[in-house]
């Protein structure tokens, strides 16, 4: 056993214990660490945001004389007009542009990647149990969400099968979530036992 003499490790260890202590009871150490985390995150994001503006906008504008960058810089400044009631309507222009470009880019990719390619991947030969589950599972779930006709007769059975497939999927998601949360805790415990207390290698 060799306890760390590194100040950074001690700060991280105390912060970890502070956050984990909330599981026992709300306490001042937890609130202190939580506030420090929020503050550090906000400060970090602010600095990186400024670096982006400097490297992508102001830097090339001044150093290379790229005057076309005045347009995005002006649009960026307009976003802040929302803090001034009389001219807050100006912030709608850059916002509309952001939403338009973002949506356009996402839809362009979504149709190919998340609709066409996903449908293609369900067109499979019925030569294995896996393929059968994929084909009939997809059809069952789609029919479960088909609301234009009452789910009676054969449609009811297919819809119930679709619901069962979804329940299996939710179970897998829950199991994966438990696995993920445990992995997070293992990582922090390993840090405490190995890097801080030195009781494991």
């Amino acid at each position: 056993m060799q306890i760390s003499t590194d100040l950074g490790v001690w700060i991280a260890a105390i912060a970890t214990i502070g956050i984990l202590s909330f599981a026992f009871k709300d306490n001042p150490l937890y609130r202190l660490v939580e506030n420090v985390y929020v503050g550090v995150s906000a400060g970090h994001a602010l600095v990186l945001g400024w670096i982006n503006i400097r490297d992508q906008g102001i830097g090339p504008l001044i150093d290379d004389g790229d005057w076309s960058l005045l347009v995005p810089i002006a649009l960026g400044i307009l976003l802040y007009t929302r803090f001034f009631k009389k001219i807050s309507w100006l912030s709608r222009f850059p916002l509309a542009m952001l939403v338009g470009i973002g949506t356009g880019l996402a839809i362009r990719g979504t149709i190919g990647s998340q609709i066409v390619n996903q449908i293609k991947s369900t067109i499979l030969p019925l030569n294995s149990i896996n393929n059968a589950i994929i084909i009939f599972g997809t059809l069952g779930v789609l029919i479960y969400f088909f609301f234009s006709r009452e789910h009676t007769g054969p449609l009811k059975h297919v819809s119930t099968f679709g619901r069962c497939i979804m329940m299996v999927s939710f179970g897998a998601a829950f199991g994966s979530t438990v696995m993920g949360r445990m992995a997070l805790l293992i990582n922090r415990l390993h840090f405490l036992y190995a890097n801080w207390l030195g009781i494991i290698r």
Partner: protein
Amino acid sequence: MWEKLVNVDRRVIYGVVFLSLSIPLIWPIGFEVAVGPETKQLYDMVNNLPEGSAVIVSMDTSPGGYGELSSGAVALLNHLASRNIRVIGMGFFDTGPSLLETAFGASDFRDKEYGVDYVNLGYLAGGETAMARVARDIVGSFPRDYRGNEVSELPVMEGITSCQDIEMIISISSGTPGVPEWIRQVGDPLGIPIATVIVAVNVPNMTPYLQAGQIIGMIPSMKGAAGYESLMGTAGLGTRGMDAQSIAHLTILALVIIGNLVYLGTKDSKTSKGGAR
């Protein structure tokens, strides 16, 4: 007895889970590690990359997700280092680049030369829109790297202008923007293979992409990291953590069963007393 179990303090359960994780971490059991096919696919893909080729490692996560992803990220970086693959690091979460520095420092890249074998290009704001820009022009998107160097002058960037000069994109991902955005903007339009080190909660969402071939491999959480370490013949945090993970899962399973038995027990006792049915 049922009433006592219903009203058990939640902190008792936390304590049981804490012990089930701590004891195997301190005294490892040595459970066998199973390697998933998705992890093996990624391992084979990295093994088949030509020496000196370049891959993008995108740290699309925050510190909250990195705790779960670090073991897989380090195992994968160690493999890339052993194969002399150039790593072009970047991040679309503001905390990504600093976590990438941590990952490089914890992996065998710490013994490689920065700017020659690997680089951390830093953070680019804009999410999916920024990824679309990187697909066309990497150097233009990142004029300076995370450490302030001119990216165009770095030897590691030789012959690389866009994502078409990249062999593979690896997203170390816990949220948005992440794998679906990479697939939409780079993977499918340009035909660049996408792989991921991913948090367990997102594994069910990624499986359809894997099945469709839109992702060529995956390291799911600590379990995937343990599998990857086993393929490489090493034992890192993934392998060490799996004993604790297995015991914790058994504990959770036991708690779920006990919870259901208690529910049934209290239901029966209420019914026999003429209570709620």
